[in-house]
């Protein structure tokens, strides 16, 4: 990555589902090698945008490209990692069986597969759980299994939908540390959250509301521009005042 070429490029991106406009004419870029936060209230279109990026949501109008290739192109399937809000793993398989299967699908074989599993399991603090059925895991452990599958293939782009929900603060801190280490190594991360205290941990922010972006800037720029004390206040100001937000 030269840094000059954005990894994600959207132009006039529109997604409509059963008559509702979910993504409303979005034009944006996401730069490589940093952590971009997608922040906004639930129902604002974060998940739909992420599903569109990984190619499982049809685009109504406009264009969306990742790594210079249209979203959903077969060539992207091994290069883009995706974790959903629900863990989307097999509860009736053990952790190892889940990771072996998804790893094989991602093209990892034998030694490389074993090495990738060991590394991911260590990174996500899941060591020692390999032979347990995932269905018996706690909510926080389950969320990390979903994340593990996304990380397994060491993808160039990571799309993580609310990856830290329900995790204890220590683990959350560790995960954000890992996201930044991955970004330094060249991975492009898009991380969604509805918790504003996570916004400050991102290199760049997309503030989203009702299918549109309120702001696309670094946390510092947003604070400066709005004159707000913190990012939550900045979001409220950008969204048109605290009173309207309080009613929702």
């Amino acid at each position, binding site marked *: 990555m030269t840094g000059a070429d954005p990894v994600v490029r959207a132009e006039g991106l529109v997604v409509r589902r059963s008559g509702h406009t979910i993504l409303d004419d979005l034009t944006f870029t996401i730069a490589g090698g940093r952590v971009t936060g997608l922040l906004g209230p639930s129902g604002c279109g974060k998940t739909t945008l992420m599903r569109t990026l990984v190619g499982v949501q*049809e685009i109504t109008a406009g264009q969306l490209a990742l790594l210079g290739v249209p979203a959903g192109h077969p060539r992207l399937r091994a290069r883009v990692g995706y974790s959903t809000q629900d863990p989307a793993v097999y509860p009736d398989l053990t952790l190892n069986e889940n990771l072996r299967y998804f790893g094989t699908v991602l093209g990892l074989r034998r030694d490389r597969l074993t090495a990738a599993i060991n590394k991911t399991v260590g990174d996500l603090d899941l060591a020692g759980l390999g032979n347990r*059925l995932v269905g018996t895991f706690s909510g926080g452990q389950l969320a990390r299994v979903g994340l593990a599958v996304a990380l397994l293939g060491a993808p160039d782009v990571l799309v993580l939908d609310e990856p830290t929900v329900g995790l204890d603060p220590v683990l959350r801190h560790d995960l954000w540390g890992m996201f930044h280490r991955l970004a330094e190594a060249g991975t492009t991360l898009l991380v969604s959250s509805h918790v504003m205290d996570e916004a400050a941990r991102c290199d760049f922010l997309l503030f989203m509301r009702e299918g549109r972006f309120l702001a696309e800037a670094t946390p510092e720029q947003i604070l400066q521009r709005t004159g707000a004390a913190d990012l939550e206040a900045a979001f409220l100001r950008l969204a048109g005042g605290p009173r309207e937000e309080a009613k929702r």
Partner: protein
Amino acid sequence: MTAEAAISWTLTSATARRVLAQLRHDPRTVAMMLAVPSVLMILLRYTLDNPLALDRFAPVYIGVFPFVIMFIVAAITTQRERARGTLERLMAMPLGKLDLLAGYAIAFGLVACVQVTVVLVISLTWLGVSLPGSAVPMAVVAIFDAILGMALGLFASAFARSEFQAVQFMPAFVLPQALLCGLVVARDQMTPVLRWLSDVLPLSYAVDAMQRISTSASWTAAIGADVAVILAFTAAALVGGALTLRRRTR
């Protein structure tokens, strides 16, 4: 599109092993898949309580019971894959649709082999069903019937939005076929419309093949023709399943 048409043996066998591993962790389901056809045969034996009638009906049911059970199991399993989000995850990964469906077909096909072997052994020994020839053709056709049921179940699940709907596809897809396949009334005694319907339903050929095997000492061309139709329906259902499996939601 060429990527969609290709099938990878590694990914297909990984999927088959994954489905079998899921079953291994669910021994109660496996026990039911293996035992239910046999229990039904035992019931049939004692309700008919007539060796001649049993020789006539038992082969037909040996073809039908595994068909029905495989239909339900396959329909529910794929529906669960949709509901849990694992299908969406796989569709965002480099897995071909045919890899997924063929993996399912192989895993459930192996289960069908065990299922049919158990019901055949019990029928031919304990229950005293007698065949004019070898049991091998019957085993082969019964396994094909079970795989046909599985393929139709996979296809049907594409139209189910919930597990509740998927369960209801059993009576909706399977019971009309059971009524029209010659099990209740011989097909040549049906009115033309029903006869025509019966001709286009796959279970009719499954039952026809089993009836022919139970009255013929050797493999005949007519049995071969029935088997060809069964395999064609199976292939069509798997391809239909791949076509209805969408990578992208609208």
